[in-house]
Structure formats: C-alpha cells, structure tokens
C-alpha cells in the first residue's frame, strides 16, 4: 500500500472519528433537546460516511479490486438519519420539551388539531 493511500485512509479515518466525536459531543453538551438533535443527524452521519470510505479504500487497495460495498451502509444512513431526527423532533414537540429562552421564531405551539382531547383518567389504577 502506497504511503499516499495510507495517508489518505488515515486522514479519512481520523476525520470520520472527529466528526463522530463532535456529533456526540454536541449531543452531550448542547443546552436543549432541539439543539442536541443537530449533532447526531449531521456530524455523526458524515463521520460514519468518512470511515466507510476509508474502509472501502483500504480493502480496495488490499484486495486490489474495487470494493464499494460500504456505499450501501452509507446509503442506508443517509436515508434513515434525517427521518429519525424528524421523528425525534416531533416527539420532542409532542412532549412540549422546553427550548432555551434565546430560541427565536414562533412559539413551538402545536396547532389545536395536533393536540388530542383532554386526558381521561384511567379506570385501572395500575396504569401509570
């Protein structure tokens, strides 16, 4: 394996690792749920993407034939990550999670039709 290839792979790996790290860092230290959502959605996805590319490059150079299987994982991630982020955000809104005060924009109120009827007490005490 040539030095350049090795350097490229190493770079890709470390970049990927850094993105993965940053994504999780954002998730760990940002101050409200909606902000924390951004890290994993974008940075982590890209980080994994980088590592997968590194892996592709590595096996390509080791086996001597193009091997781009990892693209499939990337494809999956790119399809699913935004959807899980969307659903999570929706969940957050549904639970009326607090956002930090400096958040601008319209208040994150759901419209009346997006809120169900008044809660009904459960007849079975065991529930909740």
């Amino acid at each position, binding site marked *: 394996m040539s030095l350049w290839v090795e350097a490229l792979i190493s770079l890709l790996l470390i970049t990927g690792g850094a993105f993965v790290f940053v994504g999780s860092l954002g998730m760990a230290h940002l101050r409200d749920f909606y902000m924390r959502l951004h890290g994993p959605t974008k940075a982590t996805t890209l980080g994994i993407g980088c590592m997968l590319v590194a892996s592709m490059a590595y096996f390509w150079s080791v086996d001597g034939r193009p091997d781009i299987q990892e693209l499939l994982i990337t494809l999956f991630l790119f399809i*699913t990550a935004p959807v899980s982020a969307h659903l999570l955000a929706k969940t957050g809104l549904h639970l009326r999670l607090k956002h930090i005060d400096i958040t601008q924009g319209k208040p994150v109120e759901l419209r009346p039709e997006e809120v169900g009827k008044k809660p009904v007490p459960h007849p079975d005490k065991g529930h909740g």
Partner: protein
Amino acid sequence: MLSIALYITLALVVMALLMNLYRLTIGPDLPDRVLALDTMYVNSIALIVLLGLWLNSKTYFESALLIAMLGFISTVAVCKYILRGDIIE
C-alpha cells in the same frame, strides 16, 4: 501510520460512545435518551468498521448494515410509542 490513525479513531469513537451513555443516563427527557440510543447505534457502526479494518476482514460488514437498518427501526418504534402509545395501530 494506519494503526496510529486507527488507535486515534478508536479513541474518538469510544469517547463518543461514552458521551452517548452520559446523555442516555441523565436524559433529562425521554427524547434525549432515545436520541442518545440512536446515536449509540450509529456510532457502533463505526466500531464495527474499525474492527473490520483491525482484523483485515470484511466479515463484519453485514453486522454494520444491520445496525444501520435496525437501529433506525427501533428508534422509529420508540418515537411512535411516545407519540401514539400503540406502535402498530
């Protein structure tokens, strides 16, 4: 060089996972925990990829693929649960 990069990356991923665990533990709310778990799933793909590089083996490719697919589905299930209670309705 590659092995050093591998070590560094591994360290980064391990730290990322520990941060996921931190968020998963402290919450404070359910969506935070779910997010942390989802991220943990994705980060473990990194772990698998690194393991493959380490062992010079593509044996673990499917595991990574499955994590990508199934991690998503469990996140969907939990979100649906929080939103609607009944996940298959």
